[in-house]
Structures are given as C-alpha cells and as structure tokens.
C-alpha cells in the first residue's frame, strides 16, 4: 500500500494522530509523512478534521433533517449550479446527487423543527428550479462514520489473562 493510503486509513480511524505518531506506526520517515499530509490537504484529498460529536449528550438542542429534493436540471450545467446554490447555506451539512426517485439529498442541521421548516419553505422550496421537497427528521442517531453512538461498549475482558 502506498504511503498516502496508509496515512488516510489511519486518519480515517483517528484524526488526532500526529505526523510523528503516524511515522512511528507506519514505519516511515516523519518528514515524508508531514509532506504527504500537506500535499493531500492542499489537493483537498483531506478536506478537514471535524470531530464526531453526539450533540444529544450535550445541552445543545439540535435537529437534523434529510430532505429529498426534486429539481429541473439546467441546460449545460446539469445539477451542479442548483447544488451550489443549496450547499452555500450554513445550515446545510451535506448535499448529495442521488440516483432514483429524487435528485438531491440535503442534510440540514438546525436548532429546532421550526427553524428547519422555515428554511425549507422559505429558502429551499422557493428556488426556481426546485420542483418539490420532502423533509424527514432524524429521531435518533445510532451509528455515524462507522462508530456506534449508543451504548459505548466497555472492555469486558478480564484484567489479566495468560
């Protein structure tokens, strides 16, 4: 496996690893690891290092919604223009172009059901090329980014075994 893939697989599991730690763990030169990370950051292979937070365990109330959007693609531009108009809103967490019965999935984050409803009815549904929207609210998150959010499993092993 190439160095870039080794780094990415490690960071995908744990973004807190430093270049020095990665170099030790991957048996590579620290400078080379640093340079490779910088290159991937510049080329937007690595787009950021957000933290996976379960906001439900905090005082902040937050609502996540998934909105199915049907749009009219524009000549010569397809869906990219309308997607860009949508993803620039800060409330929008993710936008995906989909195959199947609708065109775009828009993931929204808001402080309340009302704020999301307002965003959909005022901002999203009123855009020219948008034909229809269907809003689904997330009730509970079980797993995200490969990690289980509920019932953190304890180390059930005996403390010392041969």
């Amino acid at each position, binding site marked *: 496996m190439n160095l870039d893939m080794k780094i990415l697989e490690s960071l995908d599991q744990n973004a807190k690893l430093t270049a020095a730690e990665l170099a*030790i*763990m991957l048996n590579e030169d620290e400078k080379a690891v640093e340079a490779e990370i910088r290159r991937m950051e510049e080329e937007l292979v690595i787009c950021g290092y957000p933290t996976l937070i379960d906001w439900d365990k905090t005082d902040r109330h937050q609502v996540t919604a998934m909105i199915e959007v049907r749009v009219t693609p524009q000549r010569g531009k397809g869906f990219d223009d309308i997607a860009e108009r949508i993803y620039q809103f800060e409330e929008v967490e993710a936008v995906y172009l989909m195959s199947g019965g609708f065109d775009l999935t828009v993931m929204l984050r808001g402080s309340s059901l009302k704020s999301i409803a307002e965003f959909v009815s005022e901002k999203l549904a009123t855009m020219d090329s948008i034909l229809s929207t269907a809003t689904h609210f997330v009730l509970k998150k079980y797993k995200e980014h490969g990690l289980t959010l509920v019932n953190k499993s304890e*180390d059930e092993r005996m*403390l*010392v*075994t*041969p």
Partner: protein
Amino acid sequence: MRDPLNPAVVAIKPSGIRKFFDIVSEMKDAISLGVGEPDFPTPYHIREEGIYSLEKAKTHYTSNAGLMELRTEICRFLDRKYHIRYDAKNETLVTVGGSEAIDLAIRAMVCPGEEVIIPQPSYVSYEPCVILTQGVPVTIRLKEEDEFRLTAKDLREAITDKTKLLVLPFPNNPTGAILTEENLKEIAAVCVEKDIFVVSDEIYSELTYDQKHVSIASLPGMRERTIVINGFSKGHAMTGWRLGYACGPKEIIQQMTKIHQFAIMCAPTMSQYAAVDALKNGDEDVAMMRDSYDKRRRFVLHELRDMGLPTFEPFGAFYVFPNVAEFGMTSDAFATKLLEEQKVAIVPGTAFGDCGEGFLRISYAYSHEKLKLALDRLRIFVEHLREEQGKR
C-alpha cells in the same frame, strides 16, 4: 477422612498470572496492559453465523472430531497459508481451544519418565500438562541476546536419551518472538537426527509482522513427527468461543481423538458453525486486525525504547517484552510497585517461567489512547525510579 486429593495435582504451582490477577482485581481504576486476548470483538459476520446456527436449532453434538465441513475448511486454510496438507477425516481434530489440543497431544504422546523440552518464557500450560502425565519437563531458557528464539544448539544440549517431545511455542507468548525458516530448518534437523516429536503451538500464526509464519511441519521430514496446534482465538478474535484444533499423523490424532471423546465429547456446536464462516470469509478481518496490531506494536516499541528500556523488536503475537533488570528488583516487585504507584497492570515475565525474570510482558491489544495513557504512566514511574536510585 482420607485425603481426597491427588498429591501430583496439589504439587502443581498455581499460575503466576492468577496471583497477579488477584492483586489487580482489588484495584478498581487500574489500567491493564495484561490481557492475552484481542481487543476486537469477533467480526459480526462470524457472530451472526453462530446466531443463525442457534436459530436453525443446530444444538446437538457433532462427531467427536468436529464437523466435517469445519475440518475440511481447516485443512484448506493450513494448505493455503502454510503449505501443510492434512486429511480432514483422519488427521484433523477440533478441540475446545488450543489449550485442550496441547493437553491432548502431551497426554497421547508422553509416557511416565519421558522428557519434554519446553522453551521458556512461554505459555503457562505446557509444564503442568507434562507433569500430569508423569513426564519430566525440561526447560530451555530462551535468551534476550537470541531475541528469545530457540536455537538448534540449545535444543541439542537439552536432549537426553529420555527426550520424547519438543514443545515449540512460536510466535511466542509472552515475548512476541518468532522463528525464521532458517531457525526452523536447524531445529528440524536436530529433531530428525535425534528422533524427537514436536508439538508446535501456532495459535498466533496469523499475527506476524514483516514476515509470514512458517510451520515446522512444512519442512522435510517433520510432518510425520509434528502435531500442529492452532485455533480461532487470536487470529479471528474468538477467544470466548473456545475453539482450536490439532493436525498431525493419523496414529497420533486418533489417540488424541479418543481422549477427547471421553473427556469432552465434541467442541461446542455453535462455535464450530461460526468457525466455518471465519475460515471461509474471514481473511480480510484478520488482515485488518493484523495491520492494526502492527501499528500499535511499532508505537509501543518506540515508546519503550524512548524511555530507555532495552526492548528487542518482536515480530509476532501482540506482546512486547521489555527488559527492566536495570532497576535491580524482581519483575514481580517492579510490576507490583508500578501497579501501586501508577495503577498500571503489566504482567511480570516470571509468570511465564523463571527465565522471564527481569522482563515484563506488555500486551498491546488495547486502543491507541489507552496505550498512550498507560505508557505515559510507565514513563513517569521509570523516571522516578531512576531518580531515586541516582540519589542513593
């Protein structure tokens, strides 16, 4: 009332691990690096297969030697990975963990008074099993300067007219040492020349780093004198399923099967069904886990060397075996003091034989964060000790 007990059993020393375990369990908030099993749960597709077998009411005995389907997969696996070929029907026995297979092999082969060579430090069960057959355990002290490999020279010196069997525990618990093909060839030559049998405990065979495991049974002249022991506990993270196996010449496996038949009947049925899936569809999981251990291995080795503890690079299992002799205390005293002062539980090397004196067994089957925390505490402890000793 008469003494109800067999003095031979009473005379067996309890495992050194047990003693340490009792101390650790008293301490609620200790971080342990003392576990000899994977931190991964069994991959879900394997667990699911076990569940499915229960749903389908596969709740009866299997044949004594194990499900034919499982034995067939075991033979395919051994051929594919280590180029050793066995007949699933007559040369393969499914057991309750590798531990049972060790016991059976020793019981089937060792007569009273015959000597069994056991390189140490090594797993805790070989010696008691030999004693229970009234065989005589003969220990070879593996040395740090040999990176805890068994050398042909040491083996030759330990052999007498009474030597029957060599236990070959590599990749090794507790040292993490492996044997190269070159080592094995030299050892094999001695075994053939002196007409000695081998019980090769290869339970960690899937967890080697930088080089692939070689089974001594794959070398010329060795298949007919070797019992290969392996299982699912370490490579496939299936310790609690209690499933292992032994492969070897028909005459020996048949006698082992006889003991197994009377003592155990058969290995747990649901475990056997799950294990079929582990062998058919588990290669990727094993590769992923190996890769993860390898990263932690490098990290732990680097940290230990960085704090000035002489540590040879281990290429197998999930243990490192640092040397703490500089502090002039026994491994036991070191481990106890470390536990008391820094609440880190690390097993003293002496739990695996007297020649583990001066060493610790650190398991790296823990998350990166936990390893980091424990090693930081070990570093503080080591630095304190050095300061104290400098003052004297």
